[in-house]
C-alpha cells in the first residue's frame, strides 16, 4: 500500500521506521521545520507540552519557542494570527485541540483564509495548515467526537484532507504544508495509535503491527487530490476516509463481498476520476462516514456518483453515516457506525 499511496507524490527515500500516526505527524513537522525555516507550529498546549495528543512533542525543544509555541485558548486568534503570519511570509501549521472547538475560528477560516487569494486577486494569499483531531470512539461525548468535514468542503478556497494511516498522514501533511492554499487537515484520532476496525471490545492492534505504519524518516509527499485503493474489488465500491476506512475493511472481510474500498484522503479537491472508474467497474456504491448523515460529505459523494455513473448503477447508492443527532456519551458504541452498520449497508447495496 505504501508504494501505491505515494504514487503521484514524491518518492520516499531512506530508511523507514515504524511510527504511530502521532509520530508520523510529528515527523512531518520535524522534516518541514528542518527544511524550511518559515514553518512554525502552534496551538493550545502545543509548545512545551507537545499537544494533548503529543503531535508537536519535541518541536519546541528542537526549534525553539519562536517556532513552536503555546497559544491562548482562542481558536479565532490561532487561525487569525496564522493568516497574518502567512501573509508575512511564514508557513504556519496551527493545531486546534479538537475539531469540536474549531467553530470560534470558523469565520477566520471561511471568510478570511479561504477567500484571501480570491478577494485580493492573488495580491495576498493564506498558505496555512489548520490541523485538528476528528471523530469519535474515545468516549468523548458531543464535544470531543465530531467530524465536521462537510463544513469545510462547502467552502470554496479550502483544501480538506484526512489521512487514515501513518504513511499517508506524514506524506499528506508535508504536501499540505507545501501547498500555497489553506488546508484543513483532519486527523482521525481513533486511529492515532492503531488501525481501529470498529470492534471496540477487541484490544487495539498497534501501528507497529501494520505495514502502513512503516514510514520513511525523510521528506516525501502524498499528493493532494488523489484517493488510494485501500482494498481492490469488483462487486461494490465503498467510498470512505479516516477511521471508517478500517471499519469498512473489517465489514468487507466479514461480508465476504468483493468490495473495492477507496480511501479518499483528500475530500476537496475530490479524486472523481478514481471514484468513477471504480463505480463504473462495480456498478454499486456504498458511502461510509462517521459524520452526521444530513448534509454530510456523503451526500456530495452520492450526488456526484449518481451524476457521473447513473447508467452504471445497479442499485441505489447507500449511505452509512452517523445518526442525525449529537454524539452521545453512554451510547457511544450504539451510535458509532461500526462494522454491523456498514455490513447492513453492504447488504442493502448488494440486494437488487
Amino acid at each position: 500500500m505504501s508504494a501505491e499511496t505515494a504514487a503521484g507524490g514524491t518518492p520516499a527515500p531512506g530508511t523507514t521506521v515504524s511510527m504511530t500516526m502521532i509520530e508520523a505527524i510529528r515527523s512531518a513537522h520535524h522534516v518541514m521545520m528542518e527544511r524550511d525555516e518559515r514553518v512554525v507550529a502552534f496551538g493550545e498546549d502545543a509548545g512545551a507540552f507537545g499537544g494533548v495528543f503529543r503531535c508537536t512533542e519535541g518541536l519546541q525543544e528542537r526549534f525553539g519557542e519562536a517556532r513552536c509555541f503555546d497559544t491562548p485558548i482562542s481558536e479565532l486568534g490561532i487561525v487569525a494570527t496564522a493568516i497574518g503570519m502567512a501573509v508575512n511570509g511564514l508557513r504556519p501549521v496551527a493545531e486546534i485541540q479538537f475539531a469540536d472547538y474549531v467553530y470560534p475560528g470558523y469565520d477566520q477560516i471561511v471568510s478570511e483564509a479561504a477567500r484571501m487569494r480570491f478577494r485580493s486577486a492573488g495580491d495576498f494569499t493564506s498558505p496555512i495548515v489548520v490541523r485538528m483531531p476528528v471523530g469519535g470512539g474515545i468516549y468523548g461525548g458531543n464535544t470531543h467526537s465530531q467530524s465536521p468535514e462537510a463544513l469545510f468542503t462547502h467552502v470554496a478556497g479550502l483544501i480538506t484532507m484526512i489521512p487514515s494511516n501513518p504513511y499517508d498522514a506524514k506524506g499528506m501533511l508535508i504536501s499540505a504544508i507545501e501547498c500555497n492554499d489553506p488546508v484543513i487537515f483532519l486527523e482521525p484520532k481513533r486511529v492515532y495509535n492503531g488501525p481501529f476496525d470498529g470492534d471496540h471490545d477487541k484490544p487495539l492492534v498497534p501501528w507497529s503491527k501494520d505495514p502502513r505504519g512503516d514510514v520513511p524518516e525523510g521528506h516525501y509527499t502524498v499528493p493532494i487530490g488523489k484517493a488510494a485503493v485501500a482494498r481492490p474489488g469488483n462487486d461494490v465500491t465503498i467510498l470512505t476516509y479516516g477511521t471508517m476506512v478500517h471499519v469498512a475493511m473489517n465489514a468487507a472481510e466479514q461480508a465476504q463481498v468483493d468490495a473495492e474500498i477507496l480511501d479518499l484522503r483528500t475530500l476537496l479537491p475530490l479524486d472523481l476520476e478514481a471514484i468513477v472508474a471504480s463505480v463504473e467497474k462495480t456498478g454499486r456504491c456504498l458511502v461510509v462516514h462517521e459524520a452526521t448523515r444530513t448534509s454530510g460529505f456523503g451526500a456530495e459523494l452520492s450526488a456526484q456518483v449518481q451524476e457521473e455513473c447513473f447508467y452504471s448503477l445497479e442499485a441505489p447508492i447507500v449511505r452509512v453515516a452517523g445518526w442525525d443527532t449529537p454524539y452521545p456519551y453512554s451510547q457511544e458504541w450504539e451510535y458509532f457506525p461500526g462494522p454491523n452498520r456498514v455490513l447492513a449497508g453492504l447488504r442493502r447495496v448488494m440486494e437488487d
Partner: protein
Amino acid sequence: MTVADLQPAGDAYRPPTDVAARDIMDLAFGLIRVLDDEGMAHGPWIPNLSRDTLVEILGTMFTTRAYDARMMKAQRQGKTSFSMRSRGEEAIGATTAKVMGPDDMCFPTYRQASYLIGRGQDPLVMMNQVYGNAADLNRGTQISGMYTAADLGFFSISGNLATQMPQAVGWAMAAKAKGEPTAALGFVGDGSTAEGDMHAALTFASTYRPPVILAIVNNQYAISTDEEVARGSAQTFAQRGIGYGLPSLRVDGNDVLAIHSATSWARDRALDGHGPTVIEFVTYRASAHSSSDDPTRYRPEDEFDEFPLGDPIKRLRLHLQHLGYTNDQANELDTTIRVMIEAKNDEAEAIGTINTGERPPLSKTFELVYETMPAHLVRQQKQAGLQ
C-alpha cells in the same frame, strides 16, 4: 504560577455597592482578603456569617473533595472514562452557592462541582451522571462531570469553553427586562478568558448593565499552560473588567470569607440596579487538569504547598477553631462525609457504570434532539433497531 501583589488580609477597602467603576480601579490590582495565615478575620470585607453557615460551607468543601477523589478512583478503575477535580478551589463554588438566591442562575464550568453540591445536589445524582448510567439526568448525552440542574439554578455545563459567559449576560438581560429581582453568576477559567465569548460577555454586560456577576477563576493553569499565556501583559485578570468600565474585584479565592463578602457585594449591586461586576478569584488547581493530564510534565509536584494562598479547607478549619469549632469536630464531619460518599458510590455503581449495569437507552439519543422527533430521526431510529 504568579500571584501578583499579595495584599495582607483586611487591607483592601470596601466601597459602597453603588460606587462608580472608575473610582475603584485599584481593587482590580490588589487582592481582597479577610483571613490571615492564622485564620483570623480582618477588615471591612468581613461578612456577617454565622458559624453554622461556615460549617455548612466546610461540609460542602469536604463533600466535594471526597467526591472528586472517589470519582478519580472510579476513572482509574475504568468505571468512567474521564474525571475532573476541583481540588484546591472548592471554596469558590461552595461559598458562592450560599450567596446566590433560589431563583438566581449559575452558569458554571466543569470546575464548579462544589457550587452544585453547595446548592444541595445529592452526590448520587452527580455520580450517575459521571457513570452515564440509566439514572443519569443527562441521559448519557454528556461526558462525565457536565452536570445540569435547572431546579438548583445550575445551568447545563458546556464542553465548549467560555460560551456560558455571554449566555449568563443574556439571562441577566432577561431578568432585567422582566423586572425580576434575580442575578446570574457566570464562571470562566483563566485560560478560557481568551475566547471571544468572554469579550462578548463583557461588552454586552457593559452596554446593557444587567444583573450579572462575571467570575474568572484563576487557578494558575489552563491545561499545561500557565495563566500568563492568557493574561499576557496585564497584571491581573480583574484588570480586564476595567477596559469595559465595569467594577472589578480581585479576591482571594481560597478565603471563604472574602469570597462570600465580595460575591454578596456584587449581587447586592446587581439587584439594586447598578449592573454587572467582574470578579477574579485567585486560587490554585491542585490536581491534574483532568484524568487525561499529567501535570508533572509542566510544573513542580510540590507547587501547591508553596501556593501563597494555601488550601481553602485548611484555612476555613483554622478560622472555625477560633469560633470554637474544633479540629476534632471537623475531622468527624469529614469522616461522616467520606463514608456517605462511599455509600452513594456503591449505590451509583449498582445502577451502572460506563461498562456495567444499565445505561440510558439509545432511544434517548434520538428523542432529545428536538421537542418532537422529526420524520428523518424516526426513520434512523428504526434503522438503529429501535421500535
